[in-house]
């Protein structure tokens, strides 16, 4: 079963949303939630309350939220690579999410670095 996704404010993009929708995901954005510009905790709580898995580039901040509030529907974090030419493109992100779904790993209460899931 595909997770319902929430694109955090730092990664929300029309192209990424379109690519994920085309890949079969239900995707919500901060604009749809009326949360554009809000703090991390607001996005986290919205996703938590609506059963959404968060996709974010704020890896460390959301890892902290994951530790403080372990009951959530999954956090998929994109990290900066030391070699900037290896940073994840939108296509890489969609592919990595697809790999996680195919692997059938649990998402609930889990924090994953998406960079590890592209192959």
């Amino acid at each position, binding site marked *: 079963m595909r997770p319902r996704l929430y694109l955090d404010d730092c990664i929300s993009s029309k192209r990424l949303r379109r690519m994920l929708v085309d890949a079969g995901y239900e995707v919500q954005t901060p604009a749809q939630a009326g949360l554009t510009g809000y703090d991390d905790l607001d996005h986290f709580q919205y996703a938590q309350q609506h059963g959404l898995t968060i996709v974010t580039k704020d890896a460390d*901040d959301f890892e902290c939220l994951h530790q403080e509030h372990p009951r959530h529907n999954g956090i998929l974090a994109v990290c900066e*690579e030391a070699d900037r030419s290896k940073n994840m493109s939108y296509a890489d992100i969609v592919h990595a999410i697809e790999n996680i779904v195919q692997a059938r790993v649990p998402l609930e209460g889990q924090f994953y670095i998406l960079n590890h899931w592209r192959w």
Partner: protein
Amino acid sequence: MKTLTLKEAQASYTLTIDRDALSQHLMLIRQNGQPVGVLVPFDEYQAFRAWQRKHGSEQTYRYLVARPHPWRRQLYLKGRNMTVGQLISTMQANHLTPEEAADDLELPLEQVEEALVYYRLHRDLIESEAREEAARLAAKGYAV
């Protein structure tokens, strides 16, 4: 203030400038009737550059803003919870022009352009914060 008028682009001029006189009477340079520069004593120019370096970090931005954060110091895009570094990495990873990024991320083009200027001026800070984030995650067992 004295005025120096440049009439011919190809012509070369040799001017003898008395330093003390320049201190008393700055020299305005005009081109096509419009002021384009001012000759000032070199020590005054150096003092200005020193002031500019000291206050450069206090430059104000129209589309960027500071947000409270435990360790990040780089600016964010006003109206979005997105750092300049996150915008730049998205643009680089997806080969987006400023126009394409503005459309994709639903930002004013001027905001993207200002963020690019900020990135050029503060690249070391932005890259050090990316390394800081990786180090913090690694310390918690999440190697990137």
